[in-house]
């Protein structure tokens, strides 16, 4: 894998908002068929980093290379045109439309009526949607119902299917399993694996450690805007990752609390000392 040209390379990406440095010279690489977990506490800069890759923000410094070529997106649509599909937490779906309408949203397929009028080609869109959903083994029995009638997991699936259909080159997912029940979370993870197996790399933001460890190949941890660390999943464990997320100092405290609590002194505000034991 390491010899293959990375699909995405981010070099020294930098973004500040006024006095706050949101992303501080972060670099990373994603190769075909890799699932990268992007972890970090709130405010670590994960969302900002993602938004720069997907074209929602313009970087203040650094470079983004897609298939080796430097790119600069002024709008998310440009990123999408280059094959970077982003699935946001709110899914960006229209609840009142059905699955196939959502899959083809903004990219509707037309046909000619009476030779001169351009109208929606519903049968084509239904057929193609059915196909991509089958390909991803997503079961939606009645494709023509508005998606508000589908479960959360199925809606996620539609969102993913949309990205896949339009030949996503790189998939970015922001908290895909938040607000889903356990069986549905498993289904989404399965879809991510399917994507990986089809060679589509996935950059996954998640708070859910279990998910990340279940499905990712590598994990990149951010803390306070910079990259705190990067590990192969096979070579690390949850504790270490958490440690990277929250920082060494805090980790030491936690570790000590865990290992030798009797040696700890806890000071309360009224200056009286208590021993825990």
């Amino acid at each position, binding site marked *: 894998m390491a010899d293959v040209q990375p699909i995405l390379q981010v070099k020294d990406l930098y973004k500040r908002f006024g006095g706050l440095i949101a992303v501080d010279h972060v670099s990373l690489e994603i190769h075909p068929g890799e699932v990268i977990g992007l972890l970090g506490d709130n405010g670590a800069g994960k969302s900002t980093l993602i938004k720069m890759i997907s074209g929602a923000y313009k970087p203040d410094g650094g470079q983004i290379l897609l298939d080796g070529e430097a790119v600069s997106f002024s709008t998310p649509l440009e990123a999408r045109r280059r094959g970077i599909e982003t699935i946001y937490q709110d899914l960006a779906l229209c609840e*009142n439309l059905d699955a196939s309408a959502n899959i083809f949203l903004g990219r509707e397929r037309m046909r000619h009526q009476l030779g001169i009028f351009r109208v929606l080609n519903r049968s084509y869109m239904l057929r193609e949607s059915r196909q991509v959903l089958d390909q991803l083994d997503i079961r939606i029995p009645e494709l023509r119902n508005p998606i508000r009638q589908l*479960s959360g997991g199925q809606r996620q699936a539609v969102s993913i299917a949309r990205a896949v259909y339009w030949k996503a080159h790189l998939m970015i997912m922001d908290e895909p399993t938040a607000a889903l029940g356990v069986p549905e979370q498993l289904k989404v993870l399965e879809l991510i694996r399917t994507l990986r*197996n089809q060679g589509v790399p996935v950059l996954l933001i998640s708070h859910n450690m279990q998910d990340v460890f279940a499905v990712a190949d590598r994990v990149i941890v951010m803390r306070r805007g910079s990259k705190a660390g990067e590990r192969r999943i096979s070579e690390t464990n949850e504790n270490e990752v958490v440690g990277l997320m929250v920082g060494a100092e805090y980790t030491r405290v936690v570790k000590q609390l865990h290992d030798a609590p009797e040696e700890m002194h806890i000071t309360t505000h009224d200056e009286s000392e208590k021993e825990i034991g």
Partner: protein
Amino acid sequence: MKVPDVAIPDANQSQPRKTALRPLDIVSRGWSWLFLLLLIIFFSITGQGFLNIYNFQTIGADMALVLIMALGQTFVIISGGIDLSTGFVMGMASVTAALVMSHMGGSVPLFVVVLAGVAAALGIGLIPGLVNGVIIARLRVPPFIVTLGMYGIARGAGFILSGGQPVSIQTNGIGQIGNAYLLYLLPDGRFSFFHLPSNLQGIRPSQIVQLLPFPLILLVVVTLICAWLLWQTRFGRHTYAVGGSEEASRRAGIPVVRHTILIYVFSALMASLAGVLYTMRFSNGAADVGDPLLLTSIAAVIIGGASLLGGEGTILGTVIGALIIAIIQNGLIFLGINPFWQFIAVGAVIILAVLVDQAKKKLV
């Protein structure tokens, strides 16, 4: 390459369809139909003379103004907005059409006069439509407020254009077209299209059977076009999309700003068309002719199943909504009931429509 999903409980299932509720489902979807049918039956039984061709044709012709405005409003409401300016845009357009048509000399062929009137009215309708659309789409001011402002502006503009007085058209031909029927049948078997047959010796006007009044024909054509637009075109689908989620539409690449402007222009154009129809029927144009119809046209859209939050609604629904209101108004006259009851009746139907809609959402 499929990963076997043996161990994973089937999260693919959507909530199982409650098959026992299927009949209720049909009723809730088709309730307005049923209601309409019941209304017609009720008034036919209780009101003498309600059920006849003449009455139904006149109901159709008289509801044309409201329905044409409501058709434009349907698109606006589905897209998540509202247009309060349509009444006065209709008035402004009627004044413009009347001015243009009455200024064209008698030597100009009638259909050119009509075309000129229509073109002028639609042209003037573009202005409030564009202003509404641009301010709503670009400046992000809520539609209620913008169109409320335009309500006042169009009203003033209409009165200024007309010099404060209703504008009459003296050219006789216009009114004849506006009130013409497609087919006239004489008792002696003769018939003609679009105008009364000549030589009406000994035949009283009431003996002539008239079929399909002009406003009704126009209404049917316009309704079909709007239905096609909303159902078959990309413009129609984008209308639903923007109403469902403006943000999702934006991210999907739908040109939301342009679309919104088009929607409000369309609404204004429909209001203008209603204005021209008014002028042709009444040989008259005035700034305030459309104002009494505004709330009725919005009510028709709501009764028809549209949600004020956007994303829902159909042309057919709006037609039924307008029909229900028109039939209530007409039927109560035949029943001989105090006409103030019609307001209560229409108000009750609006509330009923919203309640059924809520219940429908909970059932699914």
